[in-house]
């Protein structure tokens, strides 16, 4: 029974620590979770850098990026639109982009009951003002054609 003292010592130490320690969990979503810098969250596509080459769409392993033709927008194949419901957040698109127009933000991917609400569209908002990306919303049937 020479084990007992060491066990007791450990037990008491662990207990005391557990008493003074803060809870390991966070009351999400009341409390915000801080994600570190460089976290791969929602996309940010700077349309003024984008040339519409479509390399992001070609290399996307889950086919989440589609280039949509926009009237009055003449660069390349169109505007990249990200379907976050398909996205696996690997950011190969950022890697493939020759202009460095795509980058991850610290914004966690949103939750929606309808996958169509998870389409990230940068065409409407002036991107430079919106941290964390463009407008989320339904795509008037444009994406479903792809």
């Amino acid at each position, binding site marked *: 029974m020479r084990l007992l003292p060491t066990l007791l010592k450990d037990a008491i130490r662990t207990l005391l620590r557990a008493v003074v320690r803060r809870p*390991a969990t966070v009351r999400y979503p009341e409390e915000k979770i801080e994600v*570190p810098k*460089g*976290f*791969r969250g929602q996309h940010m596509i700077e349309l003024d850098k984008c040339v519409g080459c479509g390399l992001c769409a070609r290399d996307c392993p889950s086919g989440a990026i589609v280039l949509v033709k926009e009237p009055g927008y003449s660069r390349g194949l169109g505007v990249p639109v990200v379907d976050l419901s398909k996205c696996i957040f690997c*950011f190969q698109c950022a*890697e493939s982009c020759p202009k460095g127009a795509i980058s991850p933000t610290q914004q966690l991917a949103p939750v929606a009951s309808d996958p169509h609400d998870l389409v990230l569209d940068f065409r409407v908002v002036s991107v430079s003002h919106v941290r964390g990306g463009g407008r989320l919303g339904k795509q008037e049937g444009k994406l479903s054609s792809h």
Partner: protein
Amino acid sequence: MKQELGGDLISYRRVSPLRAWAEVVLGAHTKAVRALKHAFPDLRLSGLTGVDLGDKIALLYHLRLSKAILTLRMEVEKGEGPVVVDSLTPVIPGANLHEREAYDMLGVVFKGHPNLKRLLLPDDAPEGFHPLRKEVEARRFRPVETEPKLKPVITGEEGPYLTLIIGPQHPALHEPERFVFKVDGEVVVDVDIRIGYAHRGIEEAAEHRSYVHDLYLCERVCGICNVAHSLCYCLTVERVLGLEVPRRVQFLRVAAAELNRLHSHMLLLGVAAEEMGFSTLFMYIWRDREAVMDAMELLTGNRVISSFNRIGGVSRDVSPSLINKILSRLRPLRERLEHYLDVFKTDPTILARTEKVGILTRSDAIDLCATGPTLRASGVDFDVRDKDPYVAYEELSTFRPIVLKEGDSWARYVARIEECLVSLDVIEESFSCLPGGKVRVRAPRRVGPGEAVCTVEAPRGELLYYLLANGTDKPARLKIRTPTFTNLAPLAKMLQGVYLADVPVTLASIDPCFSCTDRVVVVDVGSGRSWFCYIDELPKLARRLGRS
């Protein structure tokens, strides 16, 4: 060394100090392996790749000699009727499952194999359907809708044994697996393992995607050891390309791989504690594991699926302040791990549940081709990082392989805790001697033609990738041999003779990448009656059976 083969050896080339390729005539492989086994007593079969070349099937036996990998290649004409070659199982018992996989996927019939049936595909898959054959369109395959039929769970064998079927459905863990145990009272006499319930056809899918897409496909072979998979894939592709990656990348890859190992081992240790009924320890270990997850998030940008390794580099660079953050997050871990080591070495509950349970002897471990901590806990000093070093392991002085002699469940757990401590050292060292430079070089999209075999020490053991490239942007063949696959045969061995109640703990000790059990069907051979019970009730049940 191989010249004893004489005229049967068609060609032999040594591409690097630790990689050799040999081609033998059809049927000479058993002779070759016997000769090699004589020269290298520690020889193990690391993997068996079958490649459909159109009118021929090439079989590649990746043999792990003491350090190097020798790939023994043999070509078989397809022709009419089944393709027949001699089985290696009589020479290397561990070849059993590898050959069953090759039979299942390519329809190669191994003469002399004790139990050649389907392994990954369902038993009722159409006769002659072998998805990796080029003439078969695997995508067209749909499982036949049949009336659910309860399979007979009593084997025809006479004797005083109970047949106990565990799985395939299991709510607590991730993957389904089926075990058929033969039990004598409380003791397991024999076990048959059936896998393939989570077969996703990744190898076939990889042939239809580009190299860029395959990286993310391979990363998802296993969520827990995703860094090992993406690293091994990148190394294989880079080797075929002849791409030299910057030194900084090599050290960053070490850090990511070791963080991944820490996370995987601590996950397992928690699960093990839970299996032993020691839920407090489970909570503590998993709480401390959060530090590793946070460090992983800081380094790679995500907690679990890291997407850190890219062909030709890593996805992001680290700054000195980030390194400090990661290291300070990991600092309290050492003391905790030392404490857990103490707990595993002294706690009477753990000792009673794991000591001298599920013993795998050294010779069995070699014969059955065990790998990873399972192999090292049986006294075989083999760690890929040590014997066949990749990335920057050669330059790190703090790395040492953990080898234990006992060979029981306890040794396999303790080996993992000690590996965690080594991992911490290695992470610190790799960050402290991080060389400058770029973190990425551009890789071409088209690869090859060429072929390469790469191995990586994943948390569960040696992970092997074989790539055959044909110069296009899609691989011609990508073979993935996961460590759990080759650890299944040793698992069956170590389960023989353990008490039924110790089965979950022993199962967890190989860190299986599949589920074990909590609800089982028990069939009483005597009365033919069957009933359900929960695994918690098994000890009780076994006592009752023992009395009656």
